[in-house]
């Protein structure tokens, strides 16, 4: 029996497979395909202080080995989440992590404070990297000073596990990683989507209503792996790795590069049962290579 548990700060996950925010709804959407109780965790849809309608259609474009999205954080707001969605989720024996986003520092702080008050939610993933909102989002994640300020203010009101989700749209991700670590982040998750765009040559128009959007899928995996590797060398807090994980070997590569857990994102759209297959694949890999614990391979890349 392999020990699959992994630690993200003081939080222990039953296994290293989480589902990524924005790709798995609130988990409920997937119950016909996945036993949610088997997942290490679920990062729920990006949640903001006030309800948001998101961006106009079209919000999605397929690209080679991936897709662009410009959903724009459509959600019903943190109060609706706490009172009308979360009570239904408590029946599942997995760790729910709330992805928190905002337009201003006050938005982040107030939202985090409200989630902090929900006793059974052990962690938030502070999304300072959403590329699809006009104000806030990624603007915090690409500027070390803004990033440190938002993390510092949230840290003052949020006393559980604070995971900061980093943007890849920077020159030096290790610098941002160090900055937010110094402000008290307990863990880092990376990468969010890469800013991209797609054009229809026939109509000579962009394929997204917002012109640019966030690129995800296997096309971004090499970049994500490189960034996890760089960040793992730069900081000593746990990393949750993601970006184009489609199969268990992809997940194992992230663990070897230094991630203590991984998030499965876009792959859920192609195979809604993929998260469990990835979990089973990690377990078989560990058994085959005679490891007793998943912790034995974290950050053990041979160079």
């Amino acid at each position: 029996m392999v020990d699959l548990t992994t630690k993200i700060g003081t939080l222990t996950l039953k296994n290293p497979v989480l589902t990524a925010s924005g790709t798995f709804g609130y988990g409920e959407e997937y119950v016909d395909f996945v036993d949610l109780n088997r997942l290490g965790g679920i990062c729920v849809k990006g949640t903001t202080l006030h309800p948001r309608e998101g961006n106009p259609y079209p919000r999605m474009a397929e690209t080679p080995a991936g897709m662009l999205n410009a959903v724009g954080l459509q959600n019903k707001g943190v109060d609706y989440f706490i009172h009308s969605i979360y009570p239904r989720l408590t029946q599942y024996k997995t760790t729910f992590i709330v992805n928190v986003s905002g337009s201003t520092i006050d938005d982040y702080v107030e939202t985090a404070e409200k989630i902090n008050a929900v006793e059974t939610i052990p962690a938030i993933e502070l999304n300072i990297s959403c590329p699809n909102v006009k104000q806030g989002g990624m603007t915090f994640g690409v500027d070390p000073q803004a990033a440190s300020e938002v993390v510092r203010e949230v840290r003052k009101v949020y006393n559980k596990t604070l995971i900061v989700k980093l943007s890849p749209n920077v020159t030096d991700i290790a610098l941002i990683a160090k900055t937010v670590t110094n402000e008290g982040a307990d863990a880092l998750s990376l990468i969010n989507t890469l800013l991209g765009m797609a054009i229809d040559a026939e109509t000579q128009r962009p394929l997204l209503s917002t012109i640019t959007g966030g690129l995800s899928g296997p096309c971004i995996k090499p970049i994500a792996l490189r960034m996890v590797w760089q960040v793992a060398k730069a900081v000593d807090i746990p990393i949750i790795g993601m970006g184009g994980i489609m199969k268990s070997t992809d997940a194992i590569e992230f663990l070897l590069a230094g991630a203590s857990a991984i998030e499965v994102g876009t792959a859920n759209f192609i195979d809604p049962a993929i998260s469990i297959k990835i979990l089973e694949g990690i377990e078989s890999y560990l058994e085959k290579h005679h490891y007793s614990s998943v912790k034995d391979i974290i950050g053990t890349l041979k160079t």
Partner: protein
Amino acid sequence: MQKKISDWVITEKMMLNPTHFLLKFRSSDPLPILQPGQFVQLKIDENPSVFLRRTFSIHYFDLAKQEIWILVQIVGEGTSTLSHYPVGKSVNVIYPLGNSFSMPLAQQKNLLLVGGGVGIAPLLFLGSTLKQHGFSPAFLIGAKDKHHLLEIDEFEKLGQVYITTEDGSVGEKGFVTDHSVLKQSFDHIYSCGPTPMMKAIAAYASSHSIACEVSLENKMACGIGACLCCVTETHQGNTCVCVDGPVFNANELVW
């Protein structure tokens, strides 16, 4: 209805014209009773430039034969690859997805199903279901020209078929909204096709106080209400076409 992932085998393939074809499938698992308006997502593996699943409404469903038909227009890499799939090939499918058309009230006798282009696809399944429920649906079908009229013989088995073509090669010349049959009175209209056509039909229905349901074809990623990519604007805000649709009351939508 519980959603499933299954493998379906292609039992028959018919090219209807150079850009449209019909696929008939048999499921490896027993099929539940499917509803008209619902759709399926097919995984297309052979082409590396096809990443997401492809979405198709159920064109026809035969519970006794355990057979499902889909109607495909070749528009890009995904549908082009699918057009080369041979009979006997197994295809991974997620189904059944989405809501369905509603059945009319017993007193709503005059039913018109209006389709344009490949948008006629769900109307065959709807028409056959209406007929099974004792209704007599009529069909108003529009196409560019006679070569783009699809499945007319199948519709004729179910009820009266009215046709418009843009070049006048068959039926009345013009768009469906120009057809003389619209001078008759109807109790319920169902429509699927290009957005301008559905918009015009919705406006016609609204001005004549006729109940009208439309089926939308927005591009989707997940198909199960998780990614929020396929939204349409309704009077209640942005709404997922995949789970709250594809069928909407025409007056719920912001046209």
